[in-house]
C-alpha cells in the first residue's frame, strides 16, 4: 500500500508540521517515507504545501502529481489541488475556513470543522492536529500512538502543549472514524 498525500493550507497553519509527523509516524512503524515541502518564493500568509509518501516499498518519486489523499486547510488550497486528487481518493476539507463544498463527485470527501474543534480543545492553533487525527482515524495508515510519539518528540518538554495536541488529535480521530462530527 502506498499513500501519496498533499497537505496544503496558509503558511502558519502547520501543514508542513503535520506532514512531518505523518512521515515520522510512518518511519517509526518501519514504513518507507518521504516528506517534501513546497519551497518556492513563499511568504507569510501565502499558501504552502507538502507532499508526503508513506509506503510499504521504497519511495520512488517524492513528487506527486495526483495524490490519493489531499488535506485542504484553506480555500485556495482546495481550489488548487481538488482537481488533482485521484478518483476514489480522499479529500479532507477544513469546513471551518472553506465556504464551499467539494466539486468532485468521484472522491471520498470528509468535512472537518478543524478550527472549531481545536478551539473547543483549547487553542485554534491545533486545527492542523484535528485534521491530522481525522485523516489517521479515517485511513488508519499509521497508528494513533505513532502520531502521538511524533507529537511528544516535536514538543519535547512542553507537557501542556503535548496534552492539548493529543486532545485535538483524538477529537480528529473520532471524526475520521465517523464517531463524532
Amino acid at each position, binding site marked *: 500500500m502506498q499513500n501519496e498525500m498533499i497537505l496544503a493550507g496558509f503558511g502558519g497553519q502547520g501543514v508542513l508540521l503535520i506532514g512531518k509527523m505523518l512521515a515520522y509516524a510512518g*518511519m517509526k512503524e518501519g514504513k518507507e517515507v*518521504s*516528506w517534501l515541502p513546497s*519551497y*518556492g518564493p513563499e511568504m507569510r500568509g501565502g499558501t504552502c504545501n507538502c507532499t508526503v509518501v508513506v509506503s510499504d516499498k521504497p519511495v*520512488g*518519486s*517524492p*513528487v506527486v502529481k495526483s495524490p490519493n489523499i489531499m488535506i485542504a486547510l484553506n480555500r485556495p488550497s482546495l481550489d488548487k489541488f481538488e482537481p488533482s486528487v485521484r478518483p476514489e481518493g480522499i479529500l479532507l476539507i477544513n469546513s471551518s475556513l472553506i465556504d464551499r463544498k467539494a466539486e468532485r463527485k468521484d472522491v471520498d470527501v470528509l468535512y472537518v470543522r478543524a478550527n472549531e474543534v481545536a478551539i473547543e480543545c483549547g487553542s485554534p492553533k491545533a486545527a492542523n492536529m484535528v485534521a491530522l487525527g481525522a485523516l489517521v482515524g479515517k485511513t488508519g495508515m499509521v497508528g494513533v500512538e505513532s502520531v502521538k510519539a511524533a507529537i511528544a518528540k516535536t514538543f519535547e518538554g512542553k507537557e501542556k502543549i503535548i496534552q492539548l495536541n493529543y486532545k485535538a488529535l483524538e477529537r480528529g480521530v473520532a471524526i475520521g472514524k465517523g464517531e463524532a462530527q
Partner: protein
Amino acid sequence: MAKLLMKGAEAIGEAAIAADCRLFFGYPITPQNEIPEYMSLRLPQVGGTFVQAESEVAASNMLYGAGGSGARVFTSSSSPGISLMMEALSYLAGAEVPVVIVNIMRAGPGLGGILPAQADYFQATKGGGHGDYRCIVLAPWSVQDAADLIMDAFDLADFYRNPVLMIGDALIAQMMEPVEIREGRKPCKPLAPKDWATTGNKGRKPNIINSLILDPEDLERHNRRLKAKFDSMERDEVRWASYNTDGDYDILIAAYGTPARVCLTAVNELKEKGVNVGLFRPITLWPFPYAPLREKAKKAKAVLTVELSTGQMVEDVRTAVCEDLPVHFYGRQGGILVTPDEVVEQVTALLGGARPKGARKGGKA
C-alpha cells in the same frame, strides 16, 4: 544508530561531521541554505568552526587554506554560487588540495530560479574551471545516499589529494527521508598521513602548496602526473547502479539523482503492465560509467536519457553506446520535475515506434 527523519541538507551536514569534517565556509543561497544553517549550529557543538564568508569567492579560497593545512573542510552552494567558486576549484585541483564541494543545483542559466534542476552537469564533469583537471563527481538520489556519499567524498578527496564534488538537484536537500548516519565507519580508501600539509615547518623542510609553475618542463611534468592520477580515478572509482536489468528489455532508461527515482517509479508501473524497461543510474558522473552502460544497453533497442536539463548527460550516454543504438532524450527545465506519467508516455511511444511528444531523437541534439 537508529534511523532519523532528516532533510537531505541536514543529513549532508551531519554525515560530514561523522566523517570528521570540522570546518565549513560558505555563503547563503537558496536552495541549499539549510546546509550552512545546520553547520552553523552543529560545528560549534563539536569543536568545529563555521564561517559565513563575504562571498563564494572568499569561501572557496578559505577552503584552499584550510584544506592545504590538512584539515577536512567542505562548502556547499547552488549553481550561481558554484560558478563563482570555479576559479578556486581550478587552483585546488592544480595545487592538489583535498576539499569537498556540494552543489545543490537550481535552475539556470544566470540567476535562474530556485527550483530543482540538473543543468550544471557540464560544469561539474567537463571542467568549469580552467586548465587540465578533473574532479570525481558524486550524484546521490536519496537522503541516505547523500549522507553515505559525502562521507566517501572526504576519503576520496584525501586519497587523491583532489577536490571532490557532490551534485544534487534541489530535492535532495529539501526532502526529508529516514536516514542512518554511519558513525565510526571505515574510510572507503586507505588514507596516508598528510605529510604534504602546511602545518608549520619546525624540524622539516617547508611544504609548499601552490599552482604556479612557470617552467614549462616542470609544468608539463606536473600535468602528466595529474593526468596519471585522473586515469587512476577513471580506473578505480566508477560507480553506478541498475534496476530491472536481469530480464529482457527493449528500452534502457539512463538517469541520475531524483529523476532516476521518478524513472524507477515509471519502470515499476510499466512492469505491472507487463512492459520490461531497464534503468541505469550513474552514481559517479565523472568518472562516467561508460563501459557498464554500454554493457547494459546491449539488450536494449534504444536508450532514453531523462534529465532536468535540455540534455547534458545524454552526450556521455551517446559516447557510451556509440553507434550501437539510438539514444533519445526527455527533459524538463526551469525547475519543473519530470513525472512518472511523462516517463511512461515516452517509453510507450518509443515502443510503439513513434517519436514521443517533446522528445528528441539520438544523433545531433
